[in-house]
């Protein structure tokens, strides 16, 4: 997995609550058997005038000018500012794949849906939960200042505003460790192989019906 340590980037504001994973990446794009290439179809229905289909040439599709990511001032954004319950709905990991592929490394919101939150970490995206009032004031600052950037420092779990003001955020220690070092979960778990085998033997003795009889 890719490491995440520190980043300074433009912030794009996604000013609506309950943004679901169907909106983040519509289902027609889930037919791909790859992990990459979803970025051009991120928020497809909100972003383009026409209906997107896999295989369409996205570079010639008409854009919805009023959609936030189509506005010139937010080009190159790597930090997404969002509202409550971001990433709700389907468990599709294609949602963080699409966000990452588009270029987002950080998402800031007052709350996230559980599965999305989990999936983000596994793909090198840092989801930051921040108090709703702080999120609201960030929205105001982003709207008021074109080119608004934040610095996110995972090691010190701090965000630094253009004014120099800092905001602390919390991250689970295990996830922080994995992100900072780009660690792969499976490799980590397999270090405990003997624990798993021991558990399995006891579990099998108690619940033999859960295991096929060879």
């Amino acid at each position: 997995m890719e490491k995440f340590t520190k980043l300074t980037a433009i912030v794009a504001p996604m000013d609506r609550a309950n943004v679901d994973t169907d909106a983040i990446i519509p289902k027609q794009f889930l037919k791909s058997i790859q992990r990459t290439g979803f970025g051009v179809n991120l928020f497809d229905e909100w972003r383009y005038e026409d209906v997107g289909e896999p295989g369409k040439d996205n570079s010639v599709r008409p854009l919805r000018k009023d959609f936030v990511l189509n506005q010139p001032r937010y080009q190159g954004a790597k930090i997404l500012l969002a509202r409550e319950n971001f990433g709700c709905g389907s468990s599709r990991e294609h949602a963080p794949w699409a966000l990452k592929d588009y270029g987002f490394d950080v998402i800031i919101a007052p709350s996230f849906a559980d599965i999305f939150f989990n999936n983000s970490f596994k793909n090198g995206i840092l989801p930051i939960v921040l108090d709703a009032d702080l999120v609201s004031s960030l929205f105001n600052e982003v709207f008021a200042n074109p080119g608004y950037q934040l610095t996110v420092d995972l090691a010190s779990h701090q965000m630094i505003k253009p004014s120099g003001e800092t905001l602390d955020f919390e991250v689970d220690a295990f996830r922080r460790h994995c992100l900072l070092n780009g660690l792969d979960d499976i490799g980590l778990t397999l270090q405990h192989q003997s624990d798993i085998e021991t558990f399995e033997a006891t579990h099998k003795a108690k619940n033999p019906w859960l295991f096929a009889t060879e």
Partner: protein
Amino acid sequence: MSAKTLYDKLWDSHVVRQEDDGTALIYIDRQLLHEVTSPQAFEGLRLANRKPWRIDANLATPDHNVPTTAYHSVEDIVDPISRIQVKTLDANAKEFGITEFGIGDIRQGIVHVVGPEEGITLPGTTLVCGDSHTATHGALGALAHGVGTSEVEHVLATQCLIQKKMKNMLVKVNGQLQPGVGPKDVVLAIIGKIGTAGGNGHAIEFGGQVFQDMSIEGRMTVCNMAIEAGARVGLVAVDQKTIDYVEGRPFAPKGNQWQAAVEAWQDLKSDEDAHFDKVVELEGSAIEPQVSWGTSPEMVVSVNDCVPDPAQEADAVKADGIRRALSYMGLKAGMLISDIPVDYIFIGSCTNSRIEDLRQAAEVLKGQKVASSVEQALIVPGSGLVKQQAEAEGLDKIFVEAGFEWRNPGCSMCLAMNADRLPSGKHCASTSNRNFEGRQGAGGRTHLVSPQMAAAAAVAGHFIDVRQLISTNQ
């Protein structure tokens, strides 16, 4: 020993390792695989040269992309990209030696219908699937999590999931339901009350008289939509109904093992004085048939209510959400729900495509006709076996005579990854679980309802309280 909830018990009996920071490695007994969220997981195994930890713990079936019109083999899938995805599942199952109910197998169907039907879902187990509606299986007293593709790969490779224990929430529905009000109405009413984030971070146990009286299939409908209330896990305590449901299913324990299993399952309920971090209570008799009007499952009211007015919402973000939803749905604030015309009917999905759902729809449709204003009415059974059972009972004839199309099993218009799509601007009375923008087709307008209410809307051409229709029928 302190009192435990059902969730505590299931959790405790599967912890392989507990870390100091609260994360734990939990053992997974079963994994269900489908074509959409598994290809990248198998690819990951191949790239890292890893093998599945336990082949017999997995079962695969294609569902999201399969056509629901007549077909015989995977080659009949017209969309080449869908075909590749289904073929990829076939190839992966074969390569890794995993049992698959493929296209053409009578047991093929929606993963969450197939698991319980085959006895793969068992009380007291942990089960995962790369699909958020995995909570369905909690109806049988199993700890069932929806997971992402990285976790699918993780479970394949290690038979474990890295998890933090969730909090406990109890949703209690007391008393009795009115006739004509079913499990779908109950769960929609719960979501309407607690909101789509109401269960975030919690495992929800559904308790109270209403769930004790409810059938196992009804409990599945309720647990299925726990995720729409924000909870990854939904649970109902094991009782005699659970055991009767499981007995004799193909993958259920047999003989001596059956006796031992039944004994082990007796304790799968929350202790009397167990602590819940959050408790919500509803009165069963106060629940009316529900219809969602907006683009989030919490945007739901009784069929006898009106569409809400954003001007009366104090919270600015919420008012804005209502305005957006009304504009997308093409509805006016304050209009009666029963004045919303329906153009499409979809009875199906992992929420409501089991035999009891079909029987309930058939009861309303018997001797009736779909209104001429309805452009298409689909019934899509959840599995080949549900279809077979319905046909044995003659339900298919009732549906076809009423003007419904009787289809082959799959996810179908629940998310429209196959050819079944809701056209832009059309209103659909749907028994599925999500009414997000574009969910059933770009621009489509979904209204979530129970199978009875979908059938009633089909006959009336607009939403109508099914109790009214039943009383005029008699």
